[in-house]
């Protein structure tokens, strides 16, 4: 008996000693759920449905947990004696078969009923996104457009309108996910998937590739911006323009570096002879909110560092690092920053 007691105490102690560590760990993990990339920070109709489902399931799960453990505690500690068989049978059938069947069926029906919402047709704007290793090729097709407005690594959407996404992948499977706006959708090479999103709160959010896609999967992110419709239209119109010509001498020198180094073999800057299609379109790179698909910021320093050390910033990325002088890098960064 003594031995048994000691064992039980040891177990209890060791369990309790883990509680602070677990709490700390979960706090660290939760710290990753910043506001920009959190399914709990709801900013769209589709995210709201998912969020509601999540909370209902969570509350329900907690209730069930309390009920099961309460029953267990009652039976093991407080029950006066043996149950009579009639009572026990009723409890088993009621609590073990009928209740779970009813609750789970209700949850399933409700969960399935949310699915068609994400297939609601869009209101007109279609955004085609292709997952590349490791960036996003983006085309905006406003209703009736015959050619797209090409961009990359940034998604902008009008608030209060349902935008349709048509998703593809280049070589491997990726997954497109803006947690604050809705659920995720996988992207496959050679098979188009579609879904729609309806943001209802203007703001800047973060999207992330949610399917392991190679060495730099973790660095495959993007900024998602929900804007008021008029603001969005103005932005899209500006994006459709050709690139701004270099504004000063440094930018002109930078443009010469861009040309001489052959950057145009892979990148397009509309309105210049840079027409490559391998990498992201850079026509308006200066106005974007992130560089290298969420890897860095669009600042002079980050632009220069990126060009000189692509592989260090993004392992196995296809763009080679360029061994340029400090002046050339600065001029090039200046030129790119000016492509607004």
């Amino acid at each position, binding site marked *: 008996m003594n031995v048994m007691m000691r064992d039980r105490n040891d177990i209890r102690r060791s369990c309790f000693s883990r509680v602070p560590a677990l709490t700390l760990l979960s706090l660290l993990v939760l710290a990753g759920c910043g506001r920009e990339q959190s399914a709990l920070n709801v900013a769209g109709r589709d995210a709201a449905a998912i969020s509601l489902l999540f909370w209902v399931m969570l509350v329900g799960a907690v209730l069930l947990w309390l009920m099961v453990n309460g029953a267990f505690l009652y039976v093991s500690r407080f029950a006066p004696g043996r149950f009579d068989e009639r009572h026990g049978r009723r409890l088993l059938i009621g609590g073990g078969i009928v209740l779970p069947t009813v609750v789970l069926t209700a949850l399933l029906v409700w969960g399935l009923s949310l699915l068609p919402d994400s297939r609601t047709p869009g209101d007109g704007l279609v955004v085609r996104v292709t997952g590349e290793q490791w960036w996003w090729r983006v085309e905006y097709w406003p209703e009736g457009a015959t050619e797209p407005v090409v961009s990359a690594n940034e998604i902008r959407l009008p608030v209060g309108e349902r935008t349709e996404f048509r998703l593809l992948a280049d070589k491997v499977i990726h997954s497109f996910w803006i947690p604050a706006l809705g659920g995720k959708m996988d992207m496959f090479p050679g098979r188009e998937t579609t879904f729609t999103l309806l943001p209802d709160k203007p703001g800047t959010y973060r999207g992330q590739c949610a399917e392991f896609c190679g060495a730099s999967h973790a660095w495959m992110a993007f900024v998602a911006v929900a804007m008021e419709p008029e603001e969005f239209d103005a932005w899209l119109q500006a994006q459709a323009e050709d690139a701004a010509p270099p504004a000063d001498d440094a930018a002109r020198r930078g443009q010469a570096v861009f040309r001489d180094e052959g950057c145009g073999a892979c990148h397009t800057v509309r309105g210049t002879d840079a027409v490559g*299609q391998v990498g992201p379109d850079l026509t308006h790179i200066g106005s974007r909110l992130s560089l290298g698909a969420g890897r860095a910021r669009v600042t002079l320093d980050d632009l220069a560092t990126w060009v000189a050390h692509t592989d260090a910033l993004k392992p196995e990325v296809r763009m*080679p690092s360029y061994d340029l002088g400090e002046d050339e890098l600065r001029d090039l960064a200046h030129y790119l920053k000016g492509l607004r």
Partner: protein
Amino acid sequence: MRTVLLTLAAVAALGLAGAGAVVTFGLYNVSAQAGHLPGVAWLLHTTFRNAVELRAPAMDKVPPLDDPDLIALGAGHYASACAFCHATPDGARSATARAMEPPPPPIDEAVAHWKPNELFWIVENGVKMTGMPGWPVKGREDEAWAVVAYLETVKADAAPPLPGADAGAAYCRSCHERIAGPVPRLDRLSPDYIEAQLENYRTGVRPSGIMSHAVSLAPPESFADLARELAGASLPDREVAVTGDAAAGRDLAGRGTRDVPACLACHGGEDRKGPLLHGQPEDFLATQIRLWRDGTYHHNRLMVAATRDLEDADISALAAYFASLRAPE
């Protein structure tokens, strides 16, 4: 039983000691003048012949060998690198070459009993313990085939005359200004680019058996002058009839695809990063692009990245397009 084992062990020990003594005290006479012991020459030669037959590639791997430019390139390399031992088809071997053991056979005899695939294997691999060297670099089968193309003409008794023994820039010109096909023209390249390539061939960074032999004949200090002289030549545009799809090549070179960068961004003019490819021979271009794509060349990261997704059809289209271009004004 025990006696048998002990005897065997004693014999083995004696044998080992004898072999050790031969090696340690230099008892075997390695004199080429003394020649082989009776039977050894037969043993070695038979092994050689059977090994080549076993290892030569299949006959259907033999590329077309009747292109005069390919034959001329093979002839040029033969004259410079092989003729010292095997003599010219109508000349005699030097007394020195004849004194080798085994003596290298004169070329008409050497090629007589081999099929082209077997000649290729011998040129590519060389033969151990005969003095026949292997190809100086790996991965340049295209060059070994050029030599085989020439050897086939020797076998058919239709060999073109070999170029004379020029030196310096005249030696370079004996191929680069006379032969098209697999040989690039140098007048459209910049002196800096030519000099860098001479250095690349010398160090083996850019693998080529023919060019590494050729540059080994010139002192590195002379590279800059050579490059200036060769780049300064002004040759007329050749009339070219290309075989690939030059129109498809123009689209690919100009726009690229989502996998292939646009070539002209670097190769579009004299002020660009890459060398000017306009009017280079189609065969030469196709071979070079293939060497980049297949990983034989890897001395430039941009070219490795640019070529890795090219299909064979893309390569012939690009080669046809650049071959059909005139020099930019």
